[in-house]
């Protein structure tokens, strides 16, 4: 990833983070809340190559770690999303060409979001954070997956255009 693209991505993530914290968090979704931020970050990760996915995961995690409502230590989301970025990049080609099958892409993103949330909970437990009842956590993870499946097809075309526009001529 080029340096200008890193800054462009960082700025995009920060705007997305503000939308998540200011607008999406205010909506009372049935079952449990939805993280638009995670859905978009992981969708972008899934569109990248190996190095791009790892860097995007790290950047996305750093911005999410800025959340003032988080109880977790700064850097926890960066760690989780970097690992998820690597795992997504390493495994996506073995599943299918995600760019040709939007449905597979959406399901893959929803699965990756669920894995990221569960990894976050597991790592938090290792650090001694209280995560509440297991049943409630599972409900939140499942609800996030469901909302990701519903909303990802809506923003996916715009996300692809954004990615295409942010690529430098060399990267194209």
């Amino acid at each position, binding site marked *: 990833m080029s340096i200008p693209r890193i800054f462009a991505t960082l700025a995009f993530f920060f705007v997305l983070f503000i939308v998540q914290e200011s607008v999406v968090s205010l909506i009372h979704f049935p079952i449990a809340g939805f993280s638009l*931020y995670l859905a978009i970050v992981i969708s972008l990760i899934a569109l990248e190559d190996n190095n791009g996915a790892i860097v995007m995961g790290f950047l996305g995690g750093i911005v999410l770690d800025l959340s003032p*409502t*988080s109880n977790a230590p*700064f850097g926890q989301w960066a760690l989780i999303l970097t690992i998820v970025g690597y795992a997504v990049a390493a495994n996506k080609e073995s599943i299918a060409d995600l760019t040709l099958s939007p449905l597979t892409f959406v399901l893959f993103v929803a699965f990756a979001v669920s894995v990221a949330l569960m990894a976050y909970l597991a790592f938090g437990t290792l650090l001694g954070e209280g*995560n509440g009842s297991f049943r409630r956590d599972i409900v939140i993870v499942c609800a996030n997956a469901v909302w990701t499946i519903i909303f990802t097809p809506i923003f996916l075309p715009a996300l692809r255009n954004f990615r295409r526009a942010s690529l430098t001529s060399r990267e194209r």
Partner: protein
Amino acid sequence: MARGSNNRSRLLLVILLVTALFFITLDLRGVSLTKGSRSVTQSTLAPVQRTVSDIFSPVGRFFSNIKNFGKTKAELDQVEIANAQLKSALTLDQNAKGELAQLKGVLDLAGRGSYKVVAARVIGRGSAATFSQTITLDQGSSSGIRADMSVISANGLVGLVKTVTSSTSIVQLISDPNFKVGVRIARSQSIGILQGQGTNTYSLQLLDPAGTILVGDSLLTNGSDNNHPFVPGVPVGQVTWVDHTTSTLTQSGDVKSYANLNDLGVVSVILSAPSAAPSTPLLPTPAPIVTVYITAPPAPVATGVAVPGTPSASPAAKSLPTPTPTRTK
């Protein structure tokens, strides 16, 4: 070539993982750089959240209201009738009225407890990705709010101020899994610890082995030294379930909060409280029911002399007895 690319990816992965672990270590060791970054974010977010909250609050419950589409026709008919009646009352802004009602309730509770409070509007909620149960208030240190102050609504304890900037503050709700508060049972004065579970019910663990919990017991905050972080006597909730198993030394149970945490519009932060606990319990009391009886006056006895101009002289007046309203509480 591909092998070289893989090695580079792994090297990048290791570097970024070490960086993330470095940040985590710094944070856990209490380095102010990472804490400061969240404070800066909160200050940046506050104006946006305040604006969005003003615009968005009337439609924020759109998705939860969708569930009501499946109601039966009878219920829909009732709703239509109620809707028609409510239309006449919609001359005032309902959002403002709701906030006013909440503010009135919370100030009423604060007044009964002789607490010095500052009222604040809820402008944000915790993100779904962080699993934390928090709200953001539009008042901060410039209004006298500090960390570790109790936050109440009209019905009781809401949470505790976690972090503060000059214009906003983040409150950890009692439903947060990391939230713990010392409580006492109003009936028996037994002391216990209440902990959030991430849901609408909280777990109560008694500290006294001889103490008992009964379903319906009301819980009040036990208070802390110098009233920080918790002031004594604030209503917390009601016991809904008791664990009767004999495997533990002390009894435990589930508690439902008096405050509706899903519907918080206006809350109060307790700045200071009297040194002693409130002399009268602050438990929520049901609103008084006003019953109006309309009784007809005894029928006038005919005397055979009718005075012109008096009600008894008019046939219409005779057929419509003047009602005497009697108001009883």
